[in-house]
């Protein structure tokens, strides 16, 4: 190429010449030209000077290399003891969690009327909210799939893919969620309004969703009924499950499936084919009412005058039983009164502050076993430390998996946790669930709202890992390698548990202790969520290239 304008070379060509990027023939032309042309020679020299300045400026050692980097990676003994210990304790923790907590709870849930199904699976995956996931059916299958996915993602990363699969996996997961969500609304009818009524002669084909002030079902619902309302009255026939959230509910018709409800005042005067699970301030099972399966209820006042075919598992402040229980009774509360019309076919156990009052006329299979709950708990050091160890192992396992799967994001979150901006979590922690509940009140928003709540729960749990690591780094400084990172994570998690244990050791009253510990975990949750939000914001913030 000739000089531009027939007289001088442009800056680009001169730079390429300086950097020895021109072909020999062209370089020779430039060399000859700058010998003769003073203007081009001066620009050539100025560019060379600029290059030299850049080199020297970049290589000046104006600040020392951090000491932790100079210390080196430390000897590698070949055997990853840290890993073995971490995974071993995680495995032991998982086994103990299963054998010591989940398995008995599952057994208890079976006794309490949730069939032979896993309690968690029943709540999360076996409701009309989540029918798209029914094929999973079991929480352990879900965990197995999640673990397989995690391992696959880990090996994908190790295989050298430079594009992180995390986003793709997340996208795939969300896609799956949204693809599965419509299944929940297949063959369903939805009604919204102030007053909603299914007339006596009316039959709803499929599932029925209602959002209103007053909801009345006098007719027939062929599938499940899901109701959100202030006053709910069911005098008709629901052939599937009945699920409702309301202020006051009266069920006097027939429900072939299960009833699951959150309500302030509930009265059941109906024939229920399967089980009833109920969270209600006041709950009354009237004389003519019958539950084919079991009853699980948590109330302030419970009045059980009707008939329960199988077991009763109840928590209450005051409970009155004057009906029939075909299976076992397991209750916990302040006060229990067993009236003259009561008939308990199975064994009965009550844990409470007062001994139960039992009428002489009551028909019992045996004496009610009573265990007094004292205000001051007996402290079992072994049990306490063992549970702490299990909890620590679980959190460590989550942390290790997070570091393996998302090392960059993990590091960003921990760094964000060390910045004041993470106080943003004080808004996110309460804000997200409130938003999720609002979203739930729109039909299309139910999967999004429930998904957001689940993410919120997971984020709350994971927060301890990030906050713990940040605290560990605060104590020991930044980690030079993964072993150091896991050490700091472990120290931070132990520190959190140590602080959370203080109320127990001080033997503060139960409620005070509970509130203090809750406040601590809320603080950690908010702190961690703020850090997560900051890190995600940092990663999604666009930066200009040119």
């Amino acid at each position, binding site marked *: 190429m000739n000089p531009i304008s027939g007289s001088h070379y442009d800056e*680009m060509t001169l730079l390429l010449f300086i*950097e020895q*990027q021109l072909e020999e023939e062209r370089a020779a032309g430039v060399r000859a030209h700058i010998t003769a042309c003073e203007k081009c020679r001066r*620009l050539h020299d100025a560019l060379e000077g600029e290059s030299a300045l*850049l080199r*020297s400026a970049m290589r000046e050692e104006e600040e020392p290399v*951090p000491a932790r980097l*100079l210390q080196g990676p430390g000897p590698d003994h070949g055997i990853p003891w840290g890993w073995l210990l971490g995974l071993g304790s995680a495995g032991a923790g998982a086994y103990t969690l299963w054998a010591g907590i989940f398995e008995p709870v599952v057994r208890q849930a079976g006794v309490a009327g949730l069939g032979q199904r896993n309690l968690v699976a029943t709540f999360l995956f076996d409701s009309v909210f989540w029918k798209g996931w029914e094929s999973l059916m079991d929480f352990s299958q879900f965990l197995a799939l999640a673990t397989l996915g995690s391992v696959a993602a880990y090996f994908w990363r190790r295989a050298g893919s430079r594009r992180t699969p995390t986003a793709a996996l997340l996208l795939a997961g969300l896609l799956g969620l949204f693809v599965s969500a419509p299944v929940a609304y297949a063959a369903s009818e939805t009604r919204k309004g102030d007053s909603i009524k299914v007339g006596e002669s009316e039959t709803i084909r499929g599932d029925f969703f209602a959002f209103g002030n007053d909801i009345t079902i006098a007719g027939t619902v062929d599938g499940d009924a899901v109701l959100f309302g202030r006053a709910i009255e069911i005098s008709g026939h629901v052939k599937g499950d009945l699920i409702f959230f309301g202020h006051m509910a009266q069920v006097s018709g027939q429900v072939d499936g299960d009833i699951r409800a959150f309500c302030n005042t509930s009265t059941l005067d109906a024939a229920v084919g399967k089980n009833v699970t109920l969270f209600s301030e006041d709950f009354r099972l009237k004389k003519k009412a019958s539950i084919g399966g079991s009853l699980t209820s948590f109330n302030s006042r419970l009045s059980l005058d009707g008939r329960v075919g199988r077991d009763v598992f109840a928590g209450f402040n005051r409970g009155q039983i004057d009906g029939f229980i075909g299976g076992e009774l397991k209750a916990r509360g302040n006060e229990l009164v067993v009236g003259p019309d009561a008939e308990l076919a199975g064994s009965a156990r009550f844990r409470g502050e007062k001994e139960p009052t039992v009428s002489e006329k009551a028909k019992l299979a045996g004496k009610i076993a009573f265990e007094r709950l004292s205000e001051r708990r007996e402290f079992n050091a072994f049990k306490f430390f063992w549970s702490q160890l299990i909890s620590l192992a679980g959190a460590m396992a989550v942390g290790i998996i997070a570091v393996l799967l998302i090392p960059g994001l993990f590091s960003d979150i921990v760094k964000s946790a060390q910045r004041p901006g993470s106080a943003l979590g004080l808004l996110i922690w309460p804000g997200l669930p409130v938003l999720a509940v609002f979203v739930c009140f729109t039909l299309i928003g139910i999967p999004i709202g429930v998904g957001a709540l689940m993410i919120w729960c997971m984020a709350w749990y994971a927060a301890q890992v990030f906050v713990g690591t940040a605290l560990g780094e605060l104590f020991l400084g930044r980690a030079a390698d*993964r072993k150091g990172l896991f050490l700091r994570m472990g120290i931070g998690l132990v520190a959190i548990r140590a602080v959370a244990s203080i109320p127990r050791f001080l033997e503060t009253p139960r409620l005070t202790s509970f509130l203090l510990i809750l406040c601590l975990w809320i603080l950690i949750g908010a702190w961690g969520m703020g850090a997560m939000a900051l890190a995600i914001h940092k990663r999604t913030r*666009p930066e200009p290239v040119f």
Partner: protein
Amino acid sequence: MSAAASALAGGPKQQASTDLGEIVSRARDGDADAWGEIYKRHAPAIYRFCRRALPTREDAEDATGEIFLKLRDRLAQYDPTRPFSAWLYKVAANHCWDSLRRRRIRQALETGGIEEMPLEHPDPGELNRLVDQQSGEQIRRALDKLPARARMALVLRYYADMSYDEIADALGVRRAFVGVVLLRARHQLREIMLGQGRV
């Protein structure tokens, strides 16, 4: 990138080079002490490289640790016939650039406008004056204000002495555009330095 090897290893001598070859070979065979030696020799230079390429000191510290983790995992892939430093800087450059890319740098602008670089002939006097007035610290401060790609390009070329082929590979641009990216980065740097001077 033989220049990088020599420039950044602090003036390698034949003996040191031979030693390094042996150390790398031992590290590949799983010798932990050899790996420790590699780390001690190269960690400071890699940290400085990261310090120039990434926005903050914390980022550089983290990236240095992560790069050495990657290096240890990939040591078996190293071709001993090539200079070790060249391989090391390639891994470091890829890591830093990936790290910046993950922050959602706008890909649409990756090569946008590159071919539109005007063929200018700036005033050599002005450029000389600018170069003479700037201290190393001012240059580094200006570098910190550059957009990620521009800064990365300058660091790869003038700190790591990478070849145009290697820069093209690391930044994901065509080799023919590397010169334009560098020149554009220098223009931006000059503008920032002029701005600093006015302040």
